[in-house]
């Protein structure tokens, strides 16, 4: 069991998402940085999809009621176990009663904003429609379908006892960098209504920085930048949309649908951020600026393959290290 002492705000239980229920009108949810979650689970020898805590606001504090192996991945939030600083992206053991404190992340080496508290065995909330992710819109999944509150107690699945401590994993974000002019970049496929926008809108989409405004959350990121204009006014019927879709409402300022996106919408779509780059957006802090990079279908598939390769290589090396105890 872990007990939430200070919940911050909007911290939720997430796994890799509730895929396969969009036809029922149920959005995917899941970690905003699925790479940090999967890597943390690999480090702890969990299933990649084990549920963890996603923490976007700080300070955040939990108490471990039992001896627990954990790892803090995502942004570097100067974690402390009781008073002692502990390393991020590292497998640690907490004794019963110890308190883990997470502070506002430093962006000195990596511009990231979300932290994942991964636990050996995983957070053991009930699986709903195949996922433990919190579905805020529908108020189900996770812990009672809501963000965490002070005093919440989260059950931990009986860990298989495989987790080892005292080693770490490098943040994949550092191994798979993508920047344009010093700004976080994400690759984008032109979407169905791309050709209906003006040439100057196309030009602006690819060459201007886009600011992530304060009206951004797990549902979507509202961006600020040059106005994007359709060649003529468009009225569309609501249709299915997925996380990553970049919609352009009448004001001309784009919205990127994120993990808690509703499953349908009617705004024209100028592009779609590729699945392999959604974690970059998930980590981009509010107020930061991003760039869009035009990408082909094949490049999008290659990017997904590169991510999978990184994770499977990490899994292979962690298993090798833990099985052979090559060091020490």
């Amino acid at each position, binding site marked *: 069991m872990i007990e939430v002492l200070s919940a911050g705000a909007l911290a939720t239980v997430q796994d890799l998402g509730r895929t396969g229920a969009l036809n029922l009108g149920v959005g995917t949810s899941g970690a905003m940085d699925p790479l940090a979650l999967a*890597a943390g689970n690999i480090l702890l020898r969990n299933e990649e999809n084990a549920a963890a805590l996603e923490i976007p606001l700080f300070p955040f504090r939990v108490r471990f009621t039992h001896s627990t192996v954990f790892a803090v991945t995502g942004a*570097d939030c100067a974690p402390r176990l009781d008073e002692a600083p502990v*390393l*991020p*992206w*590292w497998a640690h053991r907490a004794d019963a009663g110890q308190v883990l404190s997470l502070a506002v992340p*430093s962006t*000195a*080496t*990596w511009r990231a904003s979300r932290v994942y508290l991964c636990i050996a065995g995983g957070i053991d909330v009930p699986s709903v429609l195949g996922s433990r992710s919190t579905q805020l819109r529908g108020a189900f999944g996770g812990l009672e379908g809501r963000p965490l509150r002070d005093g919440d107690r989260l059950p931990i699945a009986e860990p298989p006892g495989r987790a080892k401590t*005292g*080693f*770490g*994993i*490098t*943040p*994949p974000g*550092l*191994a798979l960098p993508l920047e344009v002019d010093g700004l976080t970049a994400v690759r984008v496929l032109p979407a169905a209504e791309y050709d209906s926008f003006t040439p100057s809108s196309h030009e602006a989409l690819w060459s201007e920085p886009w600011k992530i405004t304060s009206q951004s959350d797990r549902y979507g990121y509202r961006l600020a930048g040059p106005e994007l204009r359709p060649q003529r006014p468009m009225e569309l019927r609501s249709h299915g949309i997925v996380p990553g879709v970049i919609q352009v409402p009448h004001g001309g300022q784009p919205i990127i649908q994120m993990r808690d996106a509703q499953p349908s919408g009617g705004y024209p779509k100028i592009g779609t951020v590729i699945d392999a780059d959604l974690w970059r957006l998930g980590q981009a802090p509010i107020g930061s600026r991003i760039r869009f990079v035009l990408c082909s279908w094949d490049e999008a598939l290659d990017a997904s393959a590169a991510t999978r390769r*990184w994770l499977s*290589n*990490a899994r292979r*090396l*962690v298993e090798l*290290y833990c099985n052979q105890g*090559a*060091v*020490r």
Partner: protein
Amino acid sequence: MTNPLDHVDQLCAFLAATDIGLLELKGPAGVLRLRHDGARVEVEMIEAATAALSSSPTQIIRAPVPGLYLDRHPLRSQPSVAVGDEVAAGTPLAFLQIGPLLLPVPAPEDGMVVETFAEHGATVGYGAPLIGLQPHGSDAE
């Protein structure tokens, strides 16, 4: 057996031609230490009398595996430890990166960091000297 001191110049020339950073020879007369920083070789001779007086000899922490030597965690901008820092046994002083895997270079015992041998980001081989630690209380035995 000839005195190694008679061959210091030759040893220095050999060392200068290699990637080896440290050559330490111990004998009854004392310790001869040749340190090679890539550009030149520095010679240090510690007389046996002095070596005996030095109650806690420097312990050289060596690379337990080959890998990329990191003097800090990849997300940190400052080295984990600096020369002069007091460290507790088990503290990770530096890291060895093997692909995505990050292994600690822990302090084997309580002590003070007196020297660092490897460059941040350098590829180091098995057994390469990484950090010199002056252990505490080794004279208490």
